[in-house]
């Protein structure tokens, strides 16, 4: 308590009229606070920037040979073709990627396999430089099964290109 009494006495002894001007340090500090607050209120908000979208995939024309690398190995995307349309099935990597049950289809023309419901190696077209599988020998049921798969793919995955036989790359796309 001694200290308090001492200080009170000290302050009382001071001359009370010492600070009657405008530019006292206290006023300057307060003014600075006022200006800063006003400035920060008036400063336009920085417009919201959201990250740019993923760039769109460019539609490509594949041949069986150029499609081959897209089998999901070495961090490649997983593509497969059904009746000339190339689907990006990377999101279904667990099924179509390496080690998945459908891994044989990755980077290949999967039409025949999907139609026959078989995941075997012999469903794929062996000759990568030959003509595409015409699927002419498929039965009605098999074609229907394939159409069902195609429909599901269209709902779930993106069409990122078309598949043509080697030598047909420059031909115009046949519109359906």
């Amino acid at each position: 308590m001694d200290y308090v009494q001492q200080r009170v006495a000290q302050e009382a002894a001071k001359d009370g009229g010492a600070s009657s001007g405008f530019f006292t340090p206290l006023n300057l500090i307060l003014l600075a606070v006022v200006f800063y607050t006003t400035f920060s209120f008036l400063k336009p908000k920085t417009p919201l920037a959201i990250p740019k979208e993923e760039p769109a995939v460019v539609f490509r024309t594949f041949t069986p040979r150029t499609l081959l690398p897209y089998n999901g190995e070495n961090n490649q995307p997983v593509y497969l073709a059904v009746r000339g349309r190339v689907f990006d099935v990377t999101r279904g990597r667990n099924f179509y990627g390496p080690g998945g049950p459908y891994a044989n289809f990755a980077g290949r023309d999967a039409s025949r396999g999907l139609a026959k419901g078989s995941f075997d190696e012999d469903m794929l077209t062996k000759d990568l430089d030959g003509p595409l599988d015409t699927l002419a020998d498929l039965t009605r049921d098999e074609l229907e099964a394939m159409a069902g798969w195609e429909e599901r793919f269209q709902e779930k995955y993106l069409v990122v290109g078309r598949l043509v036989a080697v030598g047909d790359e420059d031909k115009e796309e046949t519109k359906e």
Partner: protein
Amino acid sequence: MGFFDNLLLSIDEGITGLFAQWNVYTSIIFTLFAGIITWQISTRQEPDTHPFLLARQAQGSPVRQPGESPVYRSQAAPHGMPLNAGLNVKDPGASKWARGRDGDLRDIWRQAIAGVQEEGPNKGTKGRILTVEGVEHVVEHSLDDLTRQINLIGQHILNQGGNRVAIYLPNSVELIATLFACAFYNLSPIILPFDQPTDAIISMLRRSAADTVVTAPGSFPFDVVVKSYPSLRQLVWVVDEGSKHMDWNEVPQGTGGSVNVSTWQDIIGEAPITAGKDLPPLENQSEAVDVTIFWQNKSGETEEMVRFTASNLTAAVASQLFTVPTVKRIGPSDLFLPADSLANTHTLALTLGALYSNASVAFNSAAPQAPNLTVATTGIAPTVVVATPAALLKTHEETAKTFSGTVAKDLHWLQTRSLKDGIFPESGFLTNYYQSAFRPTFGTEPGKLRIVLVAERIGADTPKLSSSVLSDLRLYTGARVMYALTAAKVAGAVAQTGYYDYRVFDNEKKACSHFGPPTTSVEVLLRDKDGFRNSDELSQGEIIVTGPSVAGKRAALGVVGYIRDDNTLAYA
């Protein structure tokens, strides 16, 4: 004493010393500070729309073709969904949940005379149709009367063997009535831009193979047309009140012997009073007719003839109705004024949309040529106006001159800042003062105007509006200003800025604002052209538009554009 005691003592002394300086000025400053904080807290407002919605306004497709940009669509019409194609017209007696028809022009007039169908306080309310003549004279037309005119004019033209009907009229009730008459009586309407030189009129008639013309005396060079365009079979004069007594049916000697001339007023007046009261029935109605328009390019170039199907037009009307948010949509309490030519499909689609929404519509034949917004809105108090870019630019220029004082400038700056933060200043002490002291009056009642629509027309050399001009205009008019990109082959608009988009950008290309996202009835892509190449980073090139409101489903617009970071379309 230890170090800390000394320190505490000096702090104590310092603070006491500082506050010992408290004086009357300090109190004033402190009150000011408290006032500013209170003001800020009490007037704090959320932006009108979420900033994310402005930061990305359109959706790009995940796959793009080589040499092209991704396909962009409005967020309201996402990929994988059908584009907005029609008005979803529910026929009487149809199931409430069944999908409606796309509709055509006939459904728009049926809706206009039926009144609001939705349950609610407005059920049954109909819009009014007005004509502004001169400065103050406003005439109201009864809807039943207009239905009768539509029927009688349609029947008359049909009975006289008309088929392709050219409409050469200024913005007027008769223009719209003839359009509906053609729709109901299976005639092909051709809308010609008004106030054209004689050889342009003849060339347009020839190219569109018109056999009938509905026009006004004084503006249509009858003698010359009859001589140089022998295919003309029929002519209907729309005579104004003042010259009704003259015999307009008389064909000048030696000319136009084969042309059947009559006047609008005679056709209506000479029919029995009970004739033409009911529209042709909805059941088994014929296919909707195509509408031909002429797009005016910059002066000196020939007009581009475009034939729109009825579904092109309804898709355009539907997408235009969609651009105004549901809570703010145009309704029976609105007065709509087309102050741009109805030969522009943007104006036409909006006007048809207003009729379909049971809003009141006012026609002023002088409005499209009005030098500024004040003149265009004379005599009435519109809430929604379609204005020409020239009139808006003039209005901006004239009003900006009156903002020369410091108070006006500062206040305008403050209001602009509010807009930039996404808040439209509508109330509050400062806003009220701004409105009463500085805002010019448009129309007969101040403060009524709430939406101004304006369109850039590709190839027509319309003056361009920058986003800062648009922002100023929002404050000067107190209305939301929406800027659209329009093209000959696209009914309505290609793209249109959002209702809540008040952002201002510096360094805009060509000093022209962006045009917002594509409307809900089109999708837009950009194709490589000249030096403009598409890449993963940049979408730019010639604007290509596809969708139900595009004549021929797909059109290349011939101008280059680019997609900005917020996915809005702008000129490149």
